[in-house]
């Protein structure tokens, strides 16, 4: 079991955004988290990555409790995310964006920086080569020197995924990776997500509104509504679950 949420709740003032959420993600699983707008999906991501602290409940990653860790510590354990509203380092180049998430495993200290020691050069070259290799997988290597903020939306989304991968995640959290993409881009993204999951041996949890993507690649789907898990299961089960239909479409009037 990689990630386990046990009775996790968070409230802001009187507003209970997530209530007693239970969710498990196993090794190499690809899980979808869906639900209507305002259901608490992104809040769940913020809880898992340590941006928010749960008001109650327990979150553990690979057996270790992470609810009290800071965001950067959780990230260094291997839980890395992308953002719904793209949060690239806008004025940095694409390459620099990738290099930033490699910083936690930077092996040289300030003395090596100031003296430009041998280690500095070795690590920098290695980082750059690794970053370019990652960019190549996504066919983005020709954009390495471009300013990240100046690139098209869909490309920025992909760069965010590469940036997350550069941090060597064990669990990758994707917040609406296909938002703003057209059909062919989404189809490409689907195969890409499956490919990186296999190549990097990742578990993936993704929030997505594009049902074709979710139903197409997720082995298991968790449905949130009003902060509560209302259903969990395979794509087929979820599609036929009356509570899910109700959450999305409402109930038919009895009269």
């Amino acid at each position, binding site marked *: 079991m990689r990630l386990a949420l046990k009775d996790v709740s968070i409230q802001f003032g009187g507003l209970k955004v997530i209530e007693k959420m239970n969710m498990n993600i196993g090794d190499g699983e690809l899980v979808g988290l869906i639900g209507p707008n305002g259901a608490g999906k992104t809040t769940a991501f913020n809880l898992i*990555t340590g*941006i928010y602290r749960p008001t109650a409940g327990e979150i553990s990653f690979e057996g270790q409790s992470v609810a009290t860790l*800071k*965001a*950067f510590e959780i*990230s*260094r354990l291997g839980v*890395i*995310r992308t*953002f719904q509203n793209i*949060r*690239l*380092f*806008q*004025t*940095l*180049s694409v*390459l*620099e964006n990738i*290099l*930033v*998430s*490699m*910083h*936690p495993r*930077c092996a*040289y200290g*300030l003395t090596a*920086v*100031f*003296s*430009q*020691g041998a280690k*500095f*050069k070795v*690590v*920098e070259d290695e*980082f750059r080569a690794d970053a370019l290799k990652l960019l190549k997988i996504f066919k983005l290597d020709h954009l*390495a*020197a*471009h*300013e990240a903020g*100046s690139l098209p939306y869909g490309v920025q989304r992909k760069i965010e995924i590469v*940036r*997350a991968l550069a*941090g060597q995640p064990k669990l990758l959290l994707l917040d609406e990776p296909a938002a703003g993409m057209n059909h062919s881009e989404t189809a490409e993204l689907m195969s890409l997500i499956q490919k990186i999951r296999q190549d990097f041996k990742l578990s993936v949890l993704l929030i997505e509104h594009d049902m074709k993507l979710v139903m197409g690649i997720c082995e298991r789907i968790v449905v949130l509504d009003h902060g509560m898990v209302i259903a969990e299961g395979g794509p087929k089960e979820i599609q036929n679950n009356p509570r899910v239909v109700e959450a999305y479409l409402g109930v038919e009037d009895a009269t």
Partner: protein
Amino acid sequence: MRSLLGWILVAVVALVVSVAATVGLNPYLQQILFYIAINSMLACSLNLVNGFCGQFSLGHAGFMAVGAYVSALISLNFHPFSGALEILNFPIYALLAGLCAAAAGFLVGMPSLRLRGDYLAIVTLGFGEIIRVVLLNLEVVGGARGLYGIPGTIDMASCFHAFFWAGATVLLLWRLIHSSYGRSFLSVREDEIAAECMGIDTTRTKVMAFVISSFFAGAAGSIFAHTTNSLNPASFQFVKSVDVVIMVVLGGMGSLTGSIIGAILVTILPEALRPLHELTGVDLRMVIYSLTLILLMILRPGGLLGSREWNQLWRRRAARS
């Protein structure tokens, strides 16, 4: 080899400047040259925090004051070298001054940089004033009278010392920002939450930048103390901090080259306008000085160089690599 090359360059520049200064310039111009070295150090180091790390520090004069007074006090009581080797004392003073200022930076930065937002500006503004008022009331450092008789002369050796420090500041900061640490500074500036989620310890990163910045401000203070030979709390008023901020903003936030240009301009401009005062009989210096700044900000809101460095000047947009 690469390491050595930078130092050789710094030494050569310092040597050329100091020889030219002692041969060709009168004491007044020499003094201005010293101020350019000092202000370059201040501007470049402040740029690390304000420009590269995206925080807003308003207390650089405070750290400079710490360095200046520490250096002055040490030099009045302690000379490891004497006679012909006397000049070798000054790097030691500057180093100790820098370390004390860095310690002050750590104490100020540690609590205030844990928070996001403008708290640093308020805290550093307060710190600068506290330092000044403490110096004003501390009898050991002469109170309002200040400290006098601080050793140091304006000659070729001291000029070399000042410019070597200025060059070293630029060189070391340059290396820092072109490293993984430098990228972590930039990531904090761009998006603190995203940086944190990519495993960057943002608090540690900000404190690191702040402490390094304070170190060089302290060293600059030391050089200042041994150039003026007297210190007075009035030299370290809030306006001094603002001056350094102006240099940084004028040159371009996030450009060391810009900071040097900003430092040179802000140092020279008021002096260059002095003849105008004599000519017209009215002191228009500050009026023109402020107008120039306003105009520059309207025409080039990102500062003279934006975030570009000398080697990227021909690029329209700074494509970083």
